[in-house]
């Protein structure tokens, strides 16, 4: 367990010290959301209607940004070989790295999302729902993204390829995440959507950890 938390701490420290990865990701998220009022016009009715979708799509794209680096540095500097030899299953190593990735890419989005929601004319009552949906959905984004990041290690044009692989897999999270916020906006019960988001998270975790670990072993060969 100490090794697990050491990996989490190390990744957080590295991403913090390497030009503030968290800040760049969340800044991208804010700018991307702010583009939409320019693109679709700033009428309150339109913005309020498409707000949940905008926030979720931008969260997906922002999550992509941090993913390319998830295993890249370890792969290049040889740290990955040490992790492969570590006295801990590779699946748990991946889990630790996903947790760190979520802490510095997902959590900042959770923090700024309510403010962006207000700017997109969403009802105040719906904001807790927005944060709850994001809190349950963004860990799944990190888990799915880990698979793509591990598969594209050392690939040519890895970044674009990563997006092509990861985004289709993330669609279910987007559907139910945006659905939850939609329900909250219309003052409908959002329990079902949150339950599905939780189920996705619980179901995806073993599948994604297995697949990422398998892909890392292939990359380490």
């Amino acid at each position, binding site marked *: 367990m100490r090794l697990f938390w050491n990996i989490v701490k190390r990744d957080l420290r590295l991403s913090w010290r390497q030009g503030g990865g968290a800040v760049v990701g969340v800044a991208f998220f804010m700018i991307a959301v702010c583009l939409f009022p320019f693109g679709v016009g700033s009428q309150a009715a339109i913005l309020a209607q498409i707000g949940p979708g905008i926030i979720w799509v931008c969260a997906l794209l922002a999550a992509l940004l941090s993913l390319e680096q998830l295993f890249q540095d370890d792969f290049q500097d040889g740290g990955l070989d040490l992790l492969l030899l570590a006295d801990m299953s590779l699946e748990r190593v991946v889990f630790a790295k996903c947790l760190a990735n979520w802490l510095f890419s997902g959590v900042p989005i959770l923090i700024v999302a309510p403010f962006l929601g207000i700017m997109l004319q969403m009802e105040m009552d719906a904001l807790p729902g927005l944060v709850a949906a994001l809190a349950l959905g963004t860990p799944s984004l990190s888990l799915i993204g880990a698979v793509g990041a591990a*598969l594209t290690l050392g690939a040519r044009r890895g970044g674009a*390829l990563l997006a092509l692989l990861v985004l289709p897999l993330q669609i279910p999270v987007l559907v139910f995440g945006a659905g939850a916020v939609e329900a909250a906006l219309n003052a409908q019960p959002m329990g079902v959507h949150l339950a599905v988001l939780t189920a996705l998270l619980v179901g995806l975790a073993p*599948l994604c950890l297995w*697949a990422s670990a398998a892909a890392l072993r292939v*990359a380490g060969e």
Partner: protein
Amino acid sequence: MHQYANPNRFLTLSDRILPWLSGLAVVLFAIGLPWALVVAPPDYQQGETVRIMYVHVPAAWLAVFCYAGLAALSAASLIWRHVLADFAARAIAPIGACFTFLALASGALWGKPMWGTWWVWDARLTSVLILFFFYLGHIALSRAFEDPTRGARAAAILALVGVVNLPIVKWSVDWWSSLHQPASISRFGTPAIHPDILIPLLIMAAAYFALFAALALIRTRTEIWRQRLRVLRLTRIERQQPLAGPSRPAGA
């Protein structure tokens, strides 16, 4: 089964089967296409547009079948490390992508006169579109590495992850209320289609399967030759510059 995983044995065997298979595909299309597009009766509601169905339905079947095959080959590649499974997976992914595209395009052409729209974001259509993206991702990933073996392994893992989409494609029309009609042909019980339409449809489906099998064999053979050519080229380069590089790419 494992004895057929030997590329040499595969080459001789497929060389013998291929003419028959190609011939079968040609004959089936020669019977099925005129029957489906000219002879078969027009539908009492849909009129002549029902003929699109003969192109659309087998393509959709093949799209799903190809992906299942791709997943099976990927599992074989990861478990037994058969190179032939890698070659075959690399060979059939573009074929599957083409069938998926054909299903989407012919569906859109049929949807415009019937539903009044080229495209709706409903569960069946969307899940097939995602299937198409998985094919594209598989094709891109398997060709993204210097070392083909590495690409094949990575693509195999991706194919297995993408299997979660297959049940969604299959049962999407039953799980969600959808514009797309549910399956009307089942092996058990009486099909909900008149034999006049069913028989040409089945012939077309058989033709598609024969075409797929022939194309898959041809492309797998090409992949084997491509790999041999690559090894030959690498050894020649190595012989020309004996002191140049310390290593040659793995998997050659």
